[in-house]
């Protein structure tokens, strides 16, 4: 049903008349109010809260530079490498666009990892923000697909062999593996067909899904309102509000957080442009040296490593050796035993636990460790989706958790970074051992969270957010 037509007041300027005309046909003013000028965000955001809008900026950088790159890039195995060098040399400002895109890829992961960590420590995934978190995890997954397929496009040695190694992993899936790998590659080795389909996914399919998820992420966030470092709801029924019903602990996003984000953005751009202009390779981490050698299917590089943002997960894959599988079998056995002895549920349920554990151990031993490595790597990402239901702590924010929780989070981050470091290095015995401990900790952190997050005495959560005027 159409709303009532509004009239611009007498003597209104042309701008106001135009806006009234538009508002009668499209909710321009309404959207602006709901999402900017009257979207109330908690006033106690700290610097951890800049990474969401920075991620949006990087997304725009990637899309805009990507559009210009596609104008000159050739998705053809015989031309791709040369077309990138053509962009770097002969296309006016091509080098700048290309470096912005390659640096943007890494920057995207930097800001997204920090953004996710913020959500993790302040409990931003907890009720009622479960969908905000799930859409976010979807964005992270898309981002990984986007980065992986985009990395093949320059068609250098690392592009080629990185794709070869990762696609071959899918061949380890029982029964359908080889066919699955063939379906992904479109050929028996990574080749022109692979390059073309990865290009198609990289420039069309994944960005479409990504943009849709970003919109859903923001709509869901604005529906439930932002969390904050205290984990105190500013819009809840008990939260104090002014005469107009606006939360006293909130400020309108525009102008307060727009000026805030512009300030943060200018600091971010200083770092970003320093890399683009003075160290676009960033010591081989943002652009790998080996990737300046054109792809050669006959020459396997001595050491193949994914780009840094995948290495924590790659490490977990490599850590899943036969020994690791035996350890997992042992852990499952012990867990089942513990459930049977200590569990407060009936005999039938206990029998079910035993049967499931036995089946899991049987499957673990029957399939190749390589396949379980793939499962571990995928599981490490998928497990994030379940976080809202794994955390049973009575308080949201780390600020009011028992002190020892902070150490658990610290060890988690340290292991994640160490796993990332190990994934870049060639495998060593001690490195694999550390990666195995790190992998167990990573999964233990999430899978045991329903128990450990309840332990200890939380501190008293204040009624209002803690805010010190600037």
């Amino acid at each position, binding site marked *: 049903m159409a709303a009532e037509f509004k009239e611009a007041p007498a003597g209104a300027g042309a701008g106001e008349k135009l806006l009234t005309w538009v508002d009668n046909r499209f909710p321009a003013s309404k959207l602006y109010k709901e999402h900017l000028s009257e979207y109330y965000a908690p*006033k106690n955001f700290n610097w951890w809260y800049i990474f969401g809008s920075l991620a949006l900026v990087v997304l725009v950088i990637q899309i805009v530079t990507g559009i210009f790159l596609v104008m000159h890039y050739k998705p053809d195995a015989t031309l791709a490498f*040369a077309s990138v*060098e*053509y962009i*770097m*040399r*002969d296309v006016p400002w091509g*080098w*700048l666009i290309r*470096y912005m895109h390659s640096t943007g890829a890494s920057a995207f992961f930097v800001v997204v990892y920090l953004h996710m960590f913020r959500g993790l420590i302040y409990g931003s995934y907890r009720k009622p923000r479960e969908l905000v978190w799930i859409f976010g995890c979807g964005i992270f997954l898309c981002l990984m697909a986007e980065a992986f397929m985009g990395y093949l496009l320059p068609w250098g040695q690392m592009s080629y062999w990185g794709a070869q190694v990762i696609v071959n992993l899918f061949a380890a899936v029982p029964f359908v593996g080889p066919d699955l790998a063939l379906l992904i590659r479109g050929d028996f080795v990574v080749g022109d067909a692979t390059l073309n389909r990865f290009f198609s996914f990289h420039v069309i399919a994944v960005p479409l899904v990504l943009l849709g998820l970003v919109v859903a992420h923001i709509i869901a966030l604005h529906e439930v309102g932002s969390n904050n470092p205290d984990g105190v709801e500013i819009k809840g029924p008990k939260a104090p509000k002014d005469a107009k019903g606006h939360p006293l602990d909130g*400020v309108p996003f525009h*102008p*307060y957080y727009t*000026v*805030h984000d*512009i*300030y943060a*953005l*200018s*600091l971010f*751009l*200083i770092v970003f*442009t*320093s890399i*683009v*202009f*003075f160290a*676009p*390779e960033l*010591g*081989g981490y943002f652009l790998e*040296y*080996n*990737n*300046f*050698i*054109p792809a050669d299917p006959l020459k396997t590089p001595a050491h193949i490593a994914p780009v840094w943002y995948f290495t924590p997960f790659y490490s977990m894959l490599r850590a899943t050796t036969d020994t690791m599988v035996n350890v997992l079998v042992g852990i499952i056995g012990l867990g089942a035993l513990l459930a049977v002895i200590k569990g407060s549920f009936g005999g039938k349920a206990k029998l079910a636990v035993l049967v499931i554990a036995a089946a899991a151990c049987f499957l673990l031993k029957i399939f190749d460790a390589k396949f379980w490595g793939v499962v571990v790597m995928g599981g490490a990402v998928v497990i994030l989706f379940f976080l809202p239901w794994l955390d049973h702590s009575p308080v949201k924010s780390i600020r009011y958790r028992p002190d020892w929780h*902070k*150490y658990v*989070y*610290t*060890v988690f*981050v*340290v292991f994640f*970074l*160490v796993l990332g*470091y*190990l994934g870049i*290095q*060639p495998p*060593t015995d*001690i*490195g694999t051992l*550390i990666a195995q401990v790190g992998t167990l900790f990573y999964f233990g952190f999430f899978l045991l969270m329903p128990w450990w997050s309840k332990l200890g005495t939380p501190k008293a959560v204040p009624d209002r957010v803690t*805010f010190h*005027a*600037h």
Partner: protein
Amino acid sequence: MKKLIATLLTALSLGMGLVSGAQAAGGGIEWDKFPKEKMTDMAALQNGAKLFVNYCLNCHAAAFNRYNRLRDLGLTEAQIKSNLLFAGEKVGETMKVSLDPKQAKDWFGATPPDLTVIARSRADGAKGSGADYLYTYLRTYYRDETKATGWNNLAFPSVAMPHVLWELQGQRGAKFEEVADPHDHSKTMHVFKGFEQLTPGTLDARAYDSAVGDLVAYLQWMGEPAQAQRFRLGVLVLLFLSVFTVFAWRLNASYWKDVK
């Protein structure tokens, strides 16, 4: 929170030290430092271009680089045409070679790689830049009759390419000594103990190093011709952003001073 971050960083650096220490031990010789000041020396870059065209471009292409890009090195189009084009190429063409890759493979056992971005591809985080590698590689050839070409190299053992610059450097032999392995006493190590000049070259040792430096400077430039422009623009962008940040900072502060 600050304490948390400090703990994190300490733990991390400890972790990294443990792992990297466990695997620090690589093969191959250390790389010499390429004299970087040659990158801003137009005469050196031009000399490097000349050496490149005369000695490298017979077998190696630089198929992504156009001859007329050398105007960036202070050469005029006429100079490029008369000094660097020998076989009727057009000045706007890229630096291709007529060598058949299949024949090359038969002759040398390997196809000579394209050299356009060679300096970028040979960098190694632990050992140095690609220019460092090339600067070392082109100065560590020695006579080795056990090899098909009669040449060997310290930076690239058993390299397929013979010493193309030997007329400039002269022929050198390498002295090796068998030394007991400090980690394993049952083994000995083949340790390099210096070069010996067998026949003189047209350049003395210092002049040869300088010529190789010029050539490597050219290769480094060719790897990314926009590099100098990148640095210049980068300075301006950072200057702008520093000023902009001050305004953004004050703008933010003036809004937030009202929030109680």
